[in-house]
């Protein structure tokens, strides 16, 4: 089993509200690999990460998602989380009335098993991680994402990643909304978490994040298909040239 790649997408087709968004995506992420996923707005990047995490609105109409060789499509999001998949959301939602500390403790209990989470140790771990990510301790008592600024939300997503220690992390535009210092802190945080057992898929529009988190592979998603893959240099080329050529070459066929 351990030889199987962490993540394998095979000819993945996904519909939202009856509309086809992903139109045959193939992608393999192995342990220790960092993949960057780029592409124009609306090309389907978040659709891809939401689908891997199991969002009920995204319907897999064709193809497979394998995690360490196991078919994911029938699994609920919590079951996927327990396998070791983590999604840092592009737009983290707020949960009024639930403190960040309570939420994280419940989440950790669910993932690690309640018997493995002792309140005092949890508190220590939480505060330690918050400090590393430059998050004020007061946030532990605040309600999840409620009134958080864009950058604060993103830091808290990485805080969750740090605590849950997943095998596969999907980071959906974690850099958007971060100021220059925060970008560095968050990227450093992510780099510290990355280990040879972990795979990462970084969704981003900007090279600047990839200066910190250095990908082994870069892929370009256009209109629901991966149209180009390459090494880190591909990101630089895209930054120079933009998506125009690729968009023209890979327009959605009429009637699709």
């Amino acid at each position, binding site marked *: 089993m351990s030889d199987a790649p962490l993540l394998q997408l095979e000819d993945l087709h996904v519909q939202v509200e009856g509309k086809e968004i992903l139109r045959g995506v193939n992608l393999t992420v192995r342990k220790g690999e960092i993949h960057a996923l780029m592409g124009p707005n609306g090309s389907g990047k978040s659709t891809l990460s939401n689908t891997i995490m199991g969002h009920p609105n995204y319907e897999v109409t064709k193809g497979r998602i394998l995690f360490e060789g196991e078919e994911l499509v029938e699994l609920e999001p919590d079951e996927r*989380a327990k396998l070791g998949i983590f999604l840092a959301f592009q737009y983290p939602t707020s949960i009024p009335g639930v403190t960040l500390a309570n939420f994280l403790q*419940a989440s950790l209990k669910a993932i690690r098993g309640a018997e493995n989470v002792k309140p005092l140790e949890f508190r220590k771990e939480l505060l330690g991680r918050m400090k590393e990510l430059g998050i004020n301790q007061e946030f532990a008592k605040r309600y999840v994402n409620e009134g958080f600024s864009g950058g604060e939300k993103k830091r808290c997503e990485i805080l969750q990643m740090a605590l849950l220690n997943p095998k596969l992390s999907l980071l959906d535009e974690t850099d958007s909304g971060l100021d220059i210092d925060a970008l560095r802190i968050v990227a450093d945080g992510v780099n510290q978490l990355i280990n040879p057992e972990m795979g990462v898929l970084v969704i981003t529009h900007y090279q600047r994040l990839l200066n910190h988190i250095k990908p082994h592979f870069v892929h370009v998603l256009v209109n629901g298909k991966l149209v180009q893959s390459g090494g880190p240099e591909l990101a630089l080329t895209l930054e120079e040239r933009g998506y125009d050529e690729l968009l023209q070459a890979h327009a959605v066929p009429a009637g699709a």
Partner: protein
Amino acid sequence: MSSDAATLQEIGNDYKYGFHDAEDYVFKSGKGLTRELVLEMSRMKGEPQWMLDIRLHALEVFHSKPLPEWGGELREIDFENIHYYVRPSEKSEKNWDDVPEYIKNTFDKLGIPEAERKFLAGVSAQYESEVVYHSIREDLEKEGVIFLDMDSALREFPDIVRKYFGTVIPTEDNKFAALNTAVWSGGSFILVPRGVRVEIPLQAYFRINAQNMGQFERTLIITEPGSYVHYIEGCTAPIYSSDSLHSAVVELIAMEGSTIRYTTIQNWSSNVYNLVTKRAQAFKNATVEWVDGNLGSKLTMKYPAVYLMEEGARGEVLSIAYAGKGQHQDAGAKMVHVAPNTASTVLSKSISKDGGRTSYRGLVKVYPGAHDIKCNVRCDALLLDEDSRSDTYPSMEIDNKDVQIGHEATVSKVGDEQLFYLMSRGLSENDAIAMIVNGFFEPFIKELPLEYAVELNRLIQLEMEGSIG
């Protein structure tokens, strides 16, 4: 399987107080409400003539008033099929050991004696129509705090009871207040003397045991100038296939500069009609806070009120309601600004699930002379599925221009995005919903003493497990 057991299964085993005891009572009235019954009750209690007169008058008022046309479905109540007076034991005891064994066991199961030892200043336990146990900490007694069951108060302090009984909620107020006044039994009487602050809560616990039972407790709380009290009541009943009726009257009088906080955690079984009249008068610079948690029951109609009688008075209602399958919570608040410079806030939160129905019914009234009024009303409803329902019926009668009134109402559904977010962090669907619900109720829960907050969180968790999956 007995029909009780069947009913129990039907509701998904999520009501853990549904057990009942065999009956071994000193007196149990036949079914139905008659003048003879009222005479008999009053005689057994050894009441003064004036109280009997009040009862007999109330009985007439009850018969003469039609059922309310609004609120919930009341026509199914069979007033002839109810036991109006059930006396489980001879007298109210001050020592748990003297309470009849089977009743003590029940209260043990409900955790009452334990709670008393741990964090209460006084406890009253009512079983059917009578208070069977009563105690108050000695130091409070020495300071002159009176905490008695209402029947004992009538015997020991007839003049005080006579002075205030029915002054906040007159017999004619509504049909169910009249019913209570005719057949009232048990309930609490509290008097906190001038300047005394009762810092830890006093609690009363109300338990219905018999089938087709009517419980009509009567509570009167008076705080003298500058004093403080926090009173908590809890209620449960067994699950039967036929209905019981709980119709209390609660009158609060907060004198100058005093504060009353009245907390209710009601968790009736789903065969109880809960029709309660609660009203307070707040005098100069006094504060009255109703913290009202409504879980369970078949139908609840309850609108705690504060009459702001003099300048500087403040009223607050903080309530939650939860309606599951076959339940209707018609709850709300009334704020009556009689005097100028008075303020009130209402925060109502309700959740409906499995076809349950919640309604917010509120009244804000400002008298012509009452200027400089601040009033804020907010009601939020959360629907957990498509079959459930929530309505708001706010009404305002404002006879003064110099008022600041805010009213806000929201209805929302548990969002897919919230569920997905929590589940993506490993929480099961049930746990995720319970967490969203707890968060929704948080403004209420954080006002409760810790022990009650924990218990309420647990109850909500149980309710969420009840029917999903």
